[in-house]
């Protein structure tokens, strides 16, 4: 039996290799890098994503009333490289599997992932502070006796004051070192 008949029979059994895509959903690999998604509950506003983005697609801007900041990704200049996800220290940025990017020109500037992240208020002086998620604070202060739950509600200045006070108390209570 000639070989080509075998191939012919196999191809007949296998069916067409063309994807049914426009009429059915296309296969998307599980690790496909699609549109950028950001979780505003995790963002600490460090801005490393804007720094590493090769296309300059990410913008972080303080709001007009200074109550928080806007986070924007414009997907029309995003290269879907995943640098932002890689460098995000709190894993707030992820890339979805959504690749349905084709759009009319009228929607060009609406291809945006847009979030408003509000500032917190310092529990001591009331100043605006960027949010520090409890999980991250617990990681930062894991080797210290400081209570992360109280310190994340303080602004950097008040944090410094609180630390100075606490350290001072520690030194007063411990006996002074002997002079030689």
């Amino acid at each position, binding site marked *: 039996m000639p070989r080509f008949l075998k191939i012919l029979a196999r191809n007949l059994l296998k069916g067409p290799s063309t994807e049914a895509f426009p009429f059915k959903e296309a296969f998307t690999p599980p690790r496909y890098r699609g549109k950028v998604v950001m979780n505003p509950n995790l963002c600490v506003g460090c801005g490393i994503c804007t720094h590493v983005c090769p296309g300059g697609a990410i913008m972080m801007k303080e709001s007009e009333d200074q109550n928080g900041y806007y986070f924007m990704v414009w997907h029309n200049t995003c290269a879907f*490289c995943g640098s932002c996800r890689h460098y995000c220290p709190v894993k707030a940025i992820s890339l979805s599997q959504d690749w349905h990017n084709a759009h009319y020109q009228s929607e060009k500037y609406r291809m945006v992932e847009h979030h408003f992240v509000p500032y917190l208020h310092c529990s001591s002086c009331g100043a605006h502070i960027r949010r520090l998620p409890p999980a991250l604070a617990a990681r930062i202060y894991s080797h210290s006796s400081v209570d992360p739950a109280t310190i994340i509600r303080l602004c950097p200045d008040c944090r410094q004051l609180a630390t100075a006070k606490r350290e001072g108390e520690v030194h007063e209570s411990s006996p002074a070192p002997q002079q030689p």
Partner: protein
Amino acid sequence: MGFLSKIAVRSPWLYRINAGSCNGCDVELATTAFIPRFDVERLGCKYCGSPRHADIVFITGPLTLRVKDQALRVWNEIPEPKITIAVGVCPVSGGVFRGGHSIEGPVDRYIPVDINVPGCPPRPQAIMEGVILARELWLRRLEKLEAGGGERRAALS
């Protein structure tokens, strides 16, 4: 309208302009057309070699200074009604090359773009979605053109 022009509207012909692309998007365009897995010719589309036969034109690349005049000249050769699809982030916004010293784009500064397919490069299925959008728009424009008679540009706007 004759019989031929009635059946011809099912099949827009495609044409590619490389306006300084890195070739990534061009490879995806070729993939969309020539690999049986995607096969854009199922939708009645076909690549053609001459801009004068084209109905839908793909533009890739950020429109570099070097290629700008040629790209615009070729684009002007394409008869109305044409649909322009910007493929990849470069023609849409300049992409990673935005602000470069030899970048004249984004393309919509010079050419009225109709459809954008961002991606670096977009996957073939996304390009096919763009082609489907373009085909609908093209059919609408053809209808307008028929209704508007000889005044081409006025009917299109």
